[in-house]
């Protein structure tokens, strides 16, 4: 399926998802990388050693969810823009998704945006609560969007209403 549509299936995702228990403990990275390709910047970007060393550069990176604290440094370093940080405990009702964003206009903190799923379809409204867009991100900004908890595993993109 993924190979013909570009959209991962539930099974694909299960294999890459942190456990329920781990998600319940707060911010953690989810690497949506499903294919053996020659690539290793994520491993080099993690200061905590939470991303497995790739013996073969084609290996799919594995996250040690106990070592990962969801800092998000890896997000801007992934050439495939495939890494997200999920925080189920953002507040009572909302979870937080941190995602890479390389479009204009950049959303602003407090702004309401349309939250999209992996097929680009509208899921719900989201609120931008974090924008990291400095030298380290090097134009791959990290946008933190709060969405209702039940959409934490669904939302993977945003649409900013304003025009350029």
């Amino acid at each position, binding site marked *: 399926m993924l190979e013909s549509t570009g959209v991962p299936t539930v099974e694909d995702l299960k294999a890459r998802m942190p456990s329920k228990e781990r998600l319940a403990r707060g911010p953690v990275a989810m690497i949506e990388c499903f294919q053996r390709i020659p690539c290793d910047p994520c491993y080099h970007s993690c200061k905590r050693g939470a991303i497995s060393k790739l013996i073969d550069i084609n290996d799919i990176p594995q996250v040690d969810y106990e070592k990962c604290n969801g800092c998000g440094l890896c997000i801007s370093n992934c050439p495939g823009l495939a890494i997200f940080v999920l925080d189920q405990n953002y507040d009572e009702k909302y979870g937080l998704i941190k995602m890479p964003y*390389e*479009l*204009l206009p950049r959303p602003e903190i407090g702004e309401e945006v349309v939250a999209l799923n992996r097929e680009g379809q509208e899921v719900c409204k989201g609120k931008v609560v974090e924008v990291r867009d400095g030298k380290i991100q090097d*134009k791959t900004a990290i946008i933190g969007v709060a969405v209702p908890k039940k959409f934490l595993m669904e939302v993977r993109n945003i649409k900013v209403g304003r025009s*350029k």
Partner: protein
Amino acid sequence: MRLEKHPILEFKRGKKVTFTFNGQEVEGYEGETIAAALHAAGIRKLSESQKLHRPRGLFCAIGNCSSCLMKVDGIPNVKICITKVREGMRVEEQKGKGDLSENY
């Protein structure tokens, strides 16, 4: 249309120049190709094919394919995708193989 803002790139444009396309004034910037300036002005049709007079435009934009041959300052068969714009340049649609009548 030109991009003013881009999420990754910054565009440094040269001095503004004016040239003509089929006698009509077109603006471009020093350092850019004729193809780029024409495209920015919305001009897609560059020439007409020899036998069937079909419209032709750009294809490769790096000097490989010869799809963009035009008459420039009277000289036919100029690859405008790798020729830079100059102030006062005369660019014309080319019909077929073009001719050298102006020069000879």
